[in-house]
């Protein structure tokens, strides 16, 4: 669909009559048909295999909205959210430390990333879950005095906290690298201009560099979030009642192992699909200023399609509210 918002100037001597629309013989694409047939055959084989197995879809249907499963899905989401908040927050801090002129800070950050990225997250969750075996009490106090607060590790480190520590601290190491890449991607001239205006380092980071780094940071962070959604299943080792733990709990009684795994998978898939949609809109939000006009969202495209379908808009009035107009590369400059 091509639209012109304004008619181009007509050079003298040319006519305004629109030539006949092009009607060419379309190119044939035989391989598209061949691949479609192949895909159908494979799909048929897979469906047939499942249909002739002793898989009970009714069991899947019976458990998919089971209260325990629903609650577990909520725990999974909740755990994902908290672990990501910890990961992103600590990750930003670590990235800024890593790039700080303070050598001690940079070194501490390096060491953290080295350690937490170098050990498996399952091992880390397991470590926090069992820390009470070496530290029965945790205390905070002023060194060399008797002023302190003490608590039993067992009551302090709940299954959920062990999982949050394991997942969040591990995630921070990965997020630190993502944020660092984002910060480095921002043009040096931006920092320079901000400093020239008298802005302090922390202000420059907060107001100028990080907002621009977002464009680079957000897409991989979306991936990390979706990945985290599935990694939370490892929290089952700390007996957190998330999706994987609960489906296993149920199948331990009824032995419908595959059926319950399918139930859990359906929920994982549904939740990651929702996150994918969120990711799309968040990325679009942070693309502001870096592209001249944003592409329409699927909903805007749908609306435009329907609008077109019902009544073709009059020529030149198709600009739709909510869509930023695309601006030509050089604006006619206004007189002084």
């Amino acid at each position, binding site marked *: 669909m091509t639209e012109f918002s304004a008619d181009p100037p007509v050079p003298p001597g040319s006519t305004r009559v629109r030539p006949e629309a092009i009607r060419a013989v379309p190119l044939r694409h035989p391989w598209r048909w061949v691949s479609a047939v192949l895909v159908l055959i494979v799909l048929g084989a897979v469906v047939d295999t499942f249909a002739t197995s002793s898989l009970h879809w009714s069991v899947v249907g019976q458990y998919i909205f089971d209260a325990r499963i629903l609650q577990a899905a909520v725990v999974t989401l909740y755990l994902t959210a908290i672990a990501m908040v910890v990961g992103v927050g600590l990750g930003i801090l670590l990235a800024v430390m890593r790039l700080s002129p303070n050598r001690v800070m940079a070194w501490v950050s390096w060491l953290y990333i080295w350690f937490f990225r170098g050990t498996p997250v399952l091992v880390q969750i397991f470590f926090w879950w069992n820390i009470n075996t070496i530290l029965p009490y945790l205390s905070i106090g002023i060194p060399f005095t008797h002023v302190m607060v003490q608590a039993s590790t067992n009551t302090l480190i709940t299954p959920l906290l062990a999982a949050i520590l394991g997942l969040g601290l591990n995630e921070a190491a990965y997020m630190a690298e993502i944020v660092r890449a984002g910060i480095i991607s921002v043009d040096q001239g931006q920092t*320079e*201009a901000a400093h*020239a*205006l008298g802005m*302090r380092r922390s202000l420059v980071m907060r107001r100028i560099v990080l907002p621009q780094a977002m464009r680079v940071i957000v897409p991989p962070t979306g991936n990390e979030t979706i990945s985290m959604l599935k990694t939370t299943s490892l929290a089952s080792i700390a007996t957190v009642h998330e999706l994987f733990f609960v489906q296993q709990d149920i199948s331990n009684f009824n032995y419908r192992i595959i059926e319950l795994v399918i139930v859990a998978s359906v929920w994982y898939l549904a939740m990651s699909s929702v996150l994918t949609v969120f990711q799309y809109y968040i990325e679009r939000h942070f693309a502001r*200023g870096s592209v001249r006009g944003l592409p329409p969202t699927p909903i805007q495209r749908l609306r435009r399609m329907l609008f077109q379908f019902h009544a073709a808009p009059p020529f030149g009035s198709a600009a739709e509210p909510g869509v930023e107009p695309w601006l030509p590369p050089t*604006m006619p*400059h206004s007189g*002084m």
Partner: protein
Amino acid sequence: MATPMVRAEAVHKNFGRNEVLRGIDIEVAPREVMCIIGPSGSGKSTFLRCINHLEKIDAGRLWVDGELVGYREHGGRLHELPDREVCHKRSEIGMVFQGFNLFPHMTALENVIEAPIKVKKEAAAVATERGRALLDRVGLGDRLDAHPRQLSGGQQQRVAIARALAMQPKLMLFDEPTSALDPELVGDVLNVMRDLAHEGMTMIVVTHEMGFAREVGDSLVFMDSGVIVEAGNPRDVIGNPQEQRTKDFLSKVL
């Protein structure tokens, strides 16, 4: 005589073993417009960046408005200024870059009011009022909500000038403000700068616009490989250069 706005005494700067400034002496009076010309790599940008302490000088002394740049003299020794004071001094000096360096995630108006609000702690309403007036003055009163990428180079550079002026600086530094512009956009930017000069702003302008230097500049400095080769009245330096290096350079740019 009034305190010079900028005074440089034997300013030296090296990047590693590369000596970029090798003894710069300069005096810029209040309300003076000084233009700096010179071949690429002669240290013009570096010198401007030293004036607002984006670079540290290695030897010599540099004063802005009677105060040492970046240091305090105390008990016969120089002490580095804390970050807070360096930033405060920078906030009184406006700088305009060859590449504009506008903040792309902010609109023109947001670019202009950011520093007054966040650095000078001005009330948003006051800053916005002045921001609008400044953008209007540089001819962009109708593009307040445009993002930098939606503006032409000339428009972006005028926003950048408004952004620097919003801090109400006592000195403006321009580093080749028109070098990245298409020829037909240069005029708008130079007009803004000419007005600013007529209003009495103290300006140091690195430029290759000889017409501007001759017409607006009170003094002209020709720099080559880190030293000042020739300085004086722009008409004299351009019309009747004394040094061979100046003659060679001028024959190339004129």
